[in-house]
């Protein structure tokens, strides 16, 4: 079975966001593989270790910087990579079209991705890819079993856990709690440098949306801070909760 994993290069989740010339400033920001995608890579590697997957291909779309995300996935254990060169301003539609075109050429049995990216938070691209390819999909998974040409996954749904079955090929997107991604070993990092990465041009697609403005939310101001005996502090906090917030006591 061939597994294809979509990865995105994103800002470190500890990064502070600032604006420069009306855009998100990226100078000096540590870049990481999107944490949700990292889990998808780990999931693919575990499928290979179990003998379910034979080959893992990792694909990313964006600028040359996305190469780092691909190399990280290769160092973890993926076999080869595809970097789609695309304007970083491409929207969810255009990125899905570019990814789906590259995926189609590979003819995989399973496509994995994070269910959302930690930067734009759109959670659209995996489902859009599934629609383009005519594949079924399951999102936000926390477990996955592959057998007999079918995938059965548990998902973190609103108010509960949903278990869904689809036929392969399918697109499946991960929640961060699916697994604990491994750190690349030194040997893995060395091997990753020799693994093949193909660079392809993005399939032509116009954006369907336009970002007209970036802004920063109003900074929250610090209020009262008290350092007193626990009973005094508790009484003051209770008073604030009752009279300012007006909480209801059940």
């Amino acid at each position, binding site marked *: 079975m061939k597994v294809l994993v979509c990865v995105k290069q994103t800002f470190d989740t500890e990064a502070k966001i600032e604006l420069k010339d009306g855009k998100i400033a990226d100078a000096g920001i540590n870049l990481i593989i999107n944490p949700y995608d990292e889990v998808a890579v780990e999931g693919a590697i575990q499928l290979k270790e179990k003998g379910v997957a034979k080959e893992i291909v990792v694909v990313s779309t964006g600028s040359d910087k996305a190469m780092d995300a691909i190399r990280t996935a290769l160092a973890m254990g993926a076999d080869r990579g595809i970097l789609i060169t695309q304007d970083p301003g491409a929207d969810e539609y255009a990125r899905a079209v570019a990814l789906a075109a590259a995926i189609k050429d590979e003819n995989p049995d399973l496509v994995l991705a994070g269910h959302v990216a930690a930067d734009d938070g759109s959670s659209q691209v995996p489902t859009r890819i599934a629609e383009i390819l005519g594949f079924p999909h399951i999102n936000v998974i926390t477990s996955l079993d592959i057998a007999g040409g079918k995938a059965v996954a548990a998902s973190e749904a609103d108010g509960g*856990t*949903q278990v869904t079955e689809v036929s392969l090929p399918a697109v499946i997107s991960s929640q961060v709690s699916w697994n604990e991604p491994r750190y690349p070993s030194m040997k893995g990092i060395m091997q990753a440098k020799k693994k093949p990465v193909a660079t392809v041009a993005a399939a032509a697609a116009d954006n369907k*949306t336009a970002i007209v403005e970036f802004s920063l939310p109003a900074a929250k101001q*610090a209020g009262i801070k008290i350092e007193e005996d626990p009973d005094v502090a508790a009484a003051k906090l*209770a008073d*604030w909760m009752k009279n300012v917030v007006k909480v209801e006591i059940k």
Partner: protein
Amino acid sequence: MAGTWVFVEQRDGNIRKVTFEMLTEAKKYGDEVSAVVFGKGVKGLAPEFAKFGADKVYAVEGDVFADYNTGAYVAQIVAMINEFKPNAVLFAHSFNGRDFASRLAQKLEAGLATDVIAAEISAGKGLFTRAIYAGKALSKVEITTSPILATIRPGVFGVAESAGAGAVVEPAVAAGAGDVYQIVKEFKPTVSARPELTEAEVVVSGGRGCKGPEGIKIIEEFADLLGAAVGGSRASIDSGWLGHELQVGQTGKVVNPNLYVACGISGAIQHLAGMSSSKFIAAVNTDTEAPIFNVSDFGVVGDLFKVVPLLVAELKK
């Protein structure tokens, strides 16, 4: 191209509050507002939507629609969009809503704004504010395709009643609605007496300072006194004291309750991203330098093991 459609978020006839939030918001655009509901035995829900201003209720009944499934739902709504030509269709930003809207948007080769926290919709134009980097920044997105599609974050828009006619329209079931390709084998509801994290009025969260299950128990008792949801920082989730579905922050949930109480949480940037938009924030932490105090309306420098039980006793008075 006229009218705003609100797709009803429901399970077994229980309508989620975000539906009423979307109806209330849609009323502001001055265009006709319709609730669109798919399911089994859902026609009777029409008066519920009329109460929040729905002029029309498009009700689609059938076994295949009993529970959400992508294939049937997308086929059905595409047929309805082609027939009735709404200006905009709003969905809840939920597990099912974003699944539905994303697949629909791609089928229509259309743009989609997800997890929207502010909206301006007029004829042929949709401008949406979205929280990016989990709320560390905002982007304003214009949708340039038709119909205008968006998923709305629960708990952001207010709810106000206004009478609507609620006239029931029963569209024909679309030809492709039988194409089910996801089989839902099981849905196990979370067994909890507490409200859902993203919908709760009050959220009480525990972090590293809870030190273990004993500390979590203290904040749970406090939460139950307030009818609050319980959440956690990455430290308490990674330690296994709370399930991942309760994580607040950039790789967890973004919450915006009336009151957020952070207990033993230092306030890493990725956690602040998930809760800074709460109306009121209180914090209890032993470290006077903890960044959580920079965003707190009321901060107590102290040990949660001492302060929280005393606070519970005080509130009970």
